[in-house]
């Protein structure tokens, strides 16, 4: 009986992968978060909730929580607006649409680390091409150009914009699929009924796309909340923790700072939020199936 082992054998790699790279570290994080384990230390001492209280008391952590929410919420809002505009623009046929679609997809296809390194140079304090343009067009004085990644407010804005740039294509593709799934009759009926562009958009098109928009937003939120690539490459959480988010703080504390147990405790704080988001994501996915 070949079938009996073939099925399990086929999905074994996936199980192994999830078990070894997601399941084990996940359990380890819980185990470490209630201990005093450091990199290189021997033995395991249970310390209760000590790490959690110490993390909550730390100003860096509070800043990171705040930043995580700012980072996730503002980039998702920007992605949503941008993806809607792009999807609408790319819906109807025009010469060069295929090429435009390809261009829009590029940031998603390129590795995020390479894209971010490009942006690091674009926003560099000395070699910034943005500043060069601003100076040439006399928007700013030559020696007074903005230090994009060096000033707290500008740094978080830069990080949010670069992350938005990276997330935009994926959301656009999802929304475009939702948009093309709307029968052509519906917007036409709205046009005949006397609705203008914005009424059709906000009362017909977007409400009809809501299930798929939900999927895009929830997916994007999880991805953004747990991601630290852009921040790690552009700012390393600086200046003064102004771009520090929970995952980057956990990484700096636990791995680079050798304090495994405290790093684990920090990362555990993401679990409740991710559980809630995942719940809603599964619910919308389920509902989309039913209707």
């Amino acid at each position, binding site marked *: 009986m070949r079938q009996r082992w073939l099925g399990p054998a086929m999905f074994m790699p996936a199980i192994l992968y999830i078990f070894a790279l997601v399941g084990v570290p996940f359990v380890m994080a819980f185990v470490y978060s209630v201990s005093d384990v450091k990199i290189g230390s021997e033995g395991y001492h249970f310390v209760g909730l000590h790490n959690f209280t110490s993390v909550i008391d730390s100003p860096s952590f509070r800043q990171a929580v705040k930043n995580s929410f700012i980072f996730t919420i503002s980039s998702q809002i920007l992605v949503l607006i941008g993806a809607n505009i792009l999807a609408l623009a790319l819906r109807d046929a025009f010469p060069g649409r295929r090429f435009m679609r390809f261009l829009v997809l590029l940031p998603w296809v390129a590795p995020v680390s390479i894209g971010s390194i490009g942006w690091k140079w674009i926003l560099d304090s000395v070699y910034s091409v943005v500043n060069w343009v601003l100076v040439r067009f006399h928007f700013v004085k030559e020696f007074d150009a903005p230090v994009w990644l060096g000033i707290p407010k500008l740094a978080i804005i830069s990080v949010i914009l670069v992350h938005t740039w990276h997330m935009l294509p994926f959301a656009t593709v999802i929304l475009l699929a939702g948009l093309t799934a709307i029968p052509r009759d519906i917007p*036409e009926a709205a046009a005949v009924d*006397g609705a203008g562009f914005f009424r059709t958009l906000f009362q017909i098109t977007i409400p009809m796309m809501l299930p798929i928009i939900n999927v895009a937003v929830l997916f994007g939120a999880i991805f953004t909340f747990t991601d630290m690539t852009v921040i790690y490459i552009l700012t390393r959480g600086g200046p003064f923790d102004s771009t520090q988010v929970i995952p980057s703080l956990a990484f700096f504390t636990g791995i680079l700072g050798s304090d495994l147990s405290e790093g684990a405790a920090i990362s555990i704080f993401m679990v409740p939020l991710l559980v809630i988001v995942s719940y809603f994501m599964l619910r919308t996915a389920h509902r989309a199936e039913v209707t």
Partner: protein
Amino acid sequence: MAIVETRKLTKVFKRGNVGAVNNVDLESREGEFLVLLGPSGSGKTTLLRMIAGLEEPTSGDILIGGRVVNDLTPRERGIAMVFQSYALYPHLTAFKNIVFPLKAQGIAKAERQKRADWAASLLGIKHLFQRKPRELSGGERQRVALARAIVREPSLFLLDEPLSNLDAKLRASAREELEQFQKRIGTTAIYVTHDQVEAMAMGDRVVVMSQGSVRQIGTPAVVYDEPADTFVATFLGSPPMNILPANGVIVGFRPEHFLPPGVAERLGEHVSYQFRVTHSEYLGAERILYGTMEGGAFNERKVISRIPATHGAEISDGNVYSFAVANRDLKFFDPKTEKRTAAARPPS
């Protein structure tokens, strides 16, 4: 004044191709029910969509109420349209669907409610107000779509095959209801269909279209009894008109005018043909006889006869009978242009 008029209206989708609609001149009359009838691909829906403003004409003019509306958006044309799929907004309740055009016009809430109630009472759908389109049956959806179309009291009513999604039984009753409904509200309507029965039953006038051109405009009786060309002659009527070329002319006569012995004698002036019945269909109210002509100018040509079942003639398959057509029921067409020509002496 004509509510809708088209002048040399043409739509070419792809440059160099034949137009989907070619040089259509049309004029509707006040309060009339005008039916655009044609097979699929005849351009009737494209024509309707151009009148609605959903499709831009390649050339020609569209006039609504005497005003050229070519450059106006659908919203500025003051028309209402019922789509083949009904195009109800799936996320809105029936009530919200119905008041949507009113909201778009900026009409106050109390007035919206009043007009929706009025439209719903005309169509008997008030009890469906709180349902979503997916909770409605096909017939109910069609009524909601109609209600949405009339609440604005449009000057023109466009209907794109609104009955084609209903089952056969419902379609017949919906057809009659829709016709009565249009008479009651008195709004000019343009109705697209490929169903000749719908066209004949509902239309004040029928516009027969083929390959983007208008073949004939007239009352149902005129297009049926006096077809302008062989296309109209064969498109209308089921089974279609017998079309028989002979001696440099095309002769046409309807199956119900090709009558068996005993009836033909009472017709006055008539021509007789020898008709070999190859097979027949009994349809309850009538019988359809299929066969060929024997001898004469139409030798071997296929013809169909349709006789009432009440006619007790003993006609059996395989035999030859002397059938006849009254002279006044013979139509003549030019073999080159396929257009109708003056009556001539029928070839015997």
